């Protein structure tokens, strides 16, 4: 039917002895891989436009500064960065440094709102694609928390902490054994980030339609609290992405490749299977 099945037949007839040459393990469904990578530009667009929207009316405010009239705590933080980070002392407009670097810029509300709606609808569509892929492959089961996860996740966390030291002292450092697709810490992180995706969509609607969907706004403690939820969920994504990228790169090419091609050559993690040809 597809090009790849056709190829399988062709190659199977040409060299039957090589057909079972390499044993690989299926890791990620095509739709899961697709939605995983699409999240990168979509989340980037949501964060950039979201902070521009935040600029228009910051959630965290204080009384107007007597000198500048500034009320925005993020602008204070921005000035702090410019004072304390070397190389930024001569920045033109310290209170806008954050907005100039991790948003579309200050005073861009109309543009930011349009980009935010575009990315938000794409994010919801992408979430649907992910749910579809997880349901079709049954991969969602690997993300569910287990009773032993808390203890195992802590073990894994300390194992990660010890890796740099072990590398420096040239000691072997074996991670705790696990027979599941993900270790407990991965599972917890992926589970939380999927839930956070759903909740950020819900809080987004609670802010966007506080009159027609007033019950949803009420669930999140009212309009202003829904904005606070939405703001901190953004930070949760950012705090997830940083160790996520570091750990994938540290884990090696096979792990990164598996999110592109869908399979992993590391079949040894499963029980009772010999990876040797």
């Amino acid at each position, binding site marked *: 039917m597809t090009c790849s099945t056709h190829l399988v037949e062709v190659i199977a007839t040409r060299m039957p002895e090589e057909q079972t040459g390499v044993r690989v393990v299926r890791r990620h469904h095509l739709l899961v891989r697709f939605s995983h990578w699409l999240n990168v530009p979509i989340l980037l667009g949501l964060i950039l436009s979201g902070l521009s929207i935040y600029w228009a*009316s910051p959630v965290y405010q204080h009384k107007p500064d007597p000198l500048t009239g500034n009320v925005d705590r993020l602008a204070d933080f921005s000035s702090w960065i410019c004072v304390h980070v070397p190389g930024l002392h001569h920045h033109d407009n310290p209170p806008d440094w954050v907005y100039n670097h991790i948003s579309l810029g200050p005073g861009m*509300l109309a543009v930011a*709102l*349009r980009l935010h709606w575009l990315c938000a609808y794409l994010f919801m569509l992408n979430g649907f694609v992910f749910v579809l892929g997880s349901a079709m492959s049954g991969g969602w089961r690997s993300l*569910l928390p287990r009773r032993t996860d808390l203890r195992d996740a802590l073990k894994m966390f300390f194992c990660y902490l010890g890796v740099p030291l072990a590398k420096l002292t040239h000691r072997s450092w074996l991670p705790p054994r696990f027979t599941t*697709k993900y270790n407990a810490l991965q599972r917890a992180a992926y589970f939380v980030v999927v839930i956070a995706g759903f909740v950020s969509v819900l809080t987004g609607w609670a802010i966007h339609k506080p009159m027609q969907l007033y019950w949803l706004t009420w669930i999140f403690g009212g309009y202003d609290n829904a904005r606070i939820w939405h703001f901190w969920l953004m930070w949760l994504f950012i705090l997830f992405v940083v160790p996520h990228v570091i750990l994938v790169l540290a884990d090696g090419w096979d792990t990164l490749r598996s999110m592109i091609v869908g399979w992993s050559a590391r079949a040894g993690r499963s029980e009772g299977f010999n990876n040797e040809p």
Partner: protein
Amino acid sequence: MNREDEHSAPEANIKSPNESVSPQKPTSFFQERPPQMMGVAPQLLRRWTRRDLLLFGAGTIAAVAAGSALLPPTTLKRLGIIQENKDWPKKEWLLNKSLRIDDDVAEALYSKDRSVPTYTKSQITPLRNNYNGATPDPSYIPEWHLTLDGLASGLSVSLNIRNLLASFQVYEQITRLVCVEGWSAISGWAGLRFDDLLRVYPPMSQAKWVRLESSVNLGPWGNPDPYYVSLDLSTARHQQTLLATHLNGKPLTVEHGAPLRLIAPVKLGLKNIKAITRITYTKDEPEDYWAKRGYSRYDGI
């Protein structure tokens, strides 16, 4: 979790000769299934890898190109990606499309019969005057009158504030006004229902829209900067859409749109036009001050 004694179960659930499934039977619907192994020819595996890397690489390039094309020119200029503002002509299309989809969603969510939440007097919060233009001289108030156009009678009607307050019932409501910027305020409003005005002075039969004008707006330097909004008739007929004359029990001040302003809590604050001087019913969608400046046209919340 995995029970040792099940290792010897017959391999009955093998899907194809190429795919072997570990023999343990899952004990529950939620239990993780054993990994699926595949035997693949090395050549085929290389081909798959090459194909997928090329496809995902092409996707990345496309996403970066599309993403940076969608960013506003000032942002791109600041990042040093472009030197001068050269707008890609079709660039606005996708962003406008998503804005219209969002407007359609807002319109679908809207129901004329659904009331917005109301609050108690103790929940009232300060309301700021978010207008950055100059406040007009209150001398216009004694001369003020409201003109109605596009009526079924074909006539133009002029009403003063005394006419309005004498001939219509006054309703009170404590509702939240939500600004597009993200702040909101709970205030007590009193005035006549827009719906009542529509019943006494019915619009022409084909009318679907209302154009509201305020001619007393001034720009930051006192220059004329006329404000006007579009409103769909369905929202005008909502029971909580008021032509308000009072804020928190007192007549409206000039800052808040004396003597008559729109209070449509199902719309963003920018549709809640102050100091209305003219109401025109139209068949086609009228222009809107903020829609011309890149904001949504419908603004239903």
